[in-house]
């Protein structure tokens, strides 16, 4: 694939891209991974803390506590997004703040805030899923495929011994 792409470029373009590549600072992959690990971990610890609170103080059992926990995390993320803090965390943390449920909430709320100026229907309503939409679509597709595989290979359903 990369070779195929290269073939379309003229020799001058290829030569230039080699020259340009030398000046391009590489992404600090190791530092980014470390930060993502740290921040992602912290968000999960916060989530765990919230869940424990629901279990100990509000009388939820562990399974039932997960829904309100996610809701609280989402609200926290939206508040941070509204105050313009979440994107600053995102620049530092990368995947650490993008992958957890807070990142999903940020992607939806940021789009909703941004497109509020185009009205509630065509702005907020239509553009809210601009970033989160593909996650839902491909999440559903992946879930469908997994369910299919599960059905084929799960002996309980197929009725194997």
């Amino acid at each position, binding site marked *: 694939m990369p070779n195929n792409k290269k073939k*379309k*470029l*003229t020799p*001058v*373009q*290829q030569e*230039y*891209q080699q*020259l*340009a590549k*030398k*000046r*391009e*600072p590489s*992404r*600090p992959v190791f530092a*980014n991974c470390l930060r993502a690990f740290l921040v992602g971990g912290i968000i999960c610890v916060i989530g765990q803390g919230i869940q424990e609170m629901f279990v100990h103080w509000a009388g939820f059992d562990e399974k039932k506590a997960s829904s309100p926990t996610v809701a609280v995390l989402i609200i926290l993320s939206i508040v941070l*997004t*509204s105050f*313009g803090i*979440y*994107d*600053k*965390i*995102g*620049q530092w*943390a*990368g*995947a650490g*703040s*993008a992958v957890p449920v807070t*990142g999903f909430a*940020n*992607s939806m*709320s*940021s*789009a909703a*805030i*941004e*497109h509020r*100026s185009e009205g509630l229907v065509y702005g907020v309503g239509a553009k809210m899923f*601009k*970033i989160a939409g593909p996650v839902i679509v491909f999440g559903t597709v992946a879930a469908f495929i997994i369910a299919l595989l599960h059905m084929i290979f799960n002996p309980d359903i197929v009725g194997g011994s």
Partner: protein
Amino acid sequence: MLKGHQSWIFEKKPVIRAAATVVGPFEGQGPLSNDFDIVHGDLMAGQDSWEKAERTLMEEAGKLAIENAGLTKEQVNFYIGGDLMNQIISTSFAARTLTIPYIGVFGACSTSMESLALAAMIVNSGSAQFALAGACSHNASAEKQFRYPTEYGSQKPPTAQFTVTGAGACVLSQEGQGLHVTSATIGRIVDMGIKDPFNMGAAMAPAAVDTIEAHFRDMQLEPGYYDLIVTGDLSKIGYAIANDLFNKHKFPIEQTQYQDCGMLIYDYQKQQVQAGASGCACSAVVTYGHLLKRMRKGELRRILVVATGALLSPISYQQGESIPCIAHAVSIEGEVEPK
């Protein structure tokens, strides 16, 4: 008058009668803040959308430039300008407010010098007594249109650039004293196959080099003729590549001082802008604010401003197209007699 292949000499030497710059809060924290006429403390500029804010900046810069020139807007014959928004709405809506006969142009971030070159040509040909040239951009409206919502927490790579919030305008006149627009070189599209919209410096550098070399070829001059050559918004990476290309082509850039507007406007230590600045307003406010002031102080006598533009759209890069780039050069010179 055409000189060489792609350059114009303005033999009547249109005068930069006045200029004005308006910037946002982030630019106001940068090292050039004292050179700008208006620094907004609010990124929204008192409006309720980013687009309206950008338009307001352009209106203010245009009005102030006309005021500084000691004119009324009725006296200005034409307004030539553009911006980064789809259908150049910021400039067109500002032109609606200014009610000056209007020519909208688009050259992405090269619009600042594209509009100045055209305004100079119109004034030089006697087709206008006074012409207004201007360009604007807004960080949040550009992010919204080209990238992600402003509050979205994505991580920008070190090659990314920060779009300048601001607007710059200048009034050219047929007669007067001061700084003259003496020549311009119109660039051609150069596309080196770079596809990454987060690496525009690398995409635009060859276009800048192409136009600069064309300028000196056409004008039969040496780089040493100018006290300063600035490119528009190549930023750190593009600037380094442009220097590499000059070396490779054995172009004697070392005869003069070569800088980049995208590296002047922000403080790399204090402000998180990755590679540097970009946007129509970058070269516009640095030139009309900072550089013209330096020329008026006598620190510089002749400069060549080479505004660079990446002519991509959100659709073109999503469809996997490479980024066509362009650069336009305009030379500005002080009075001929020494002080």
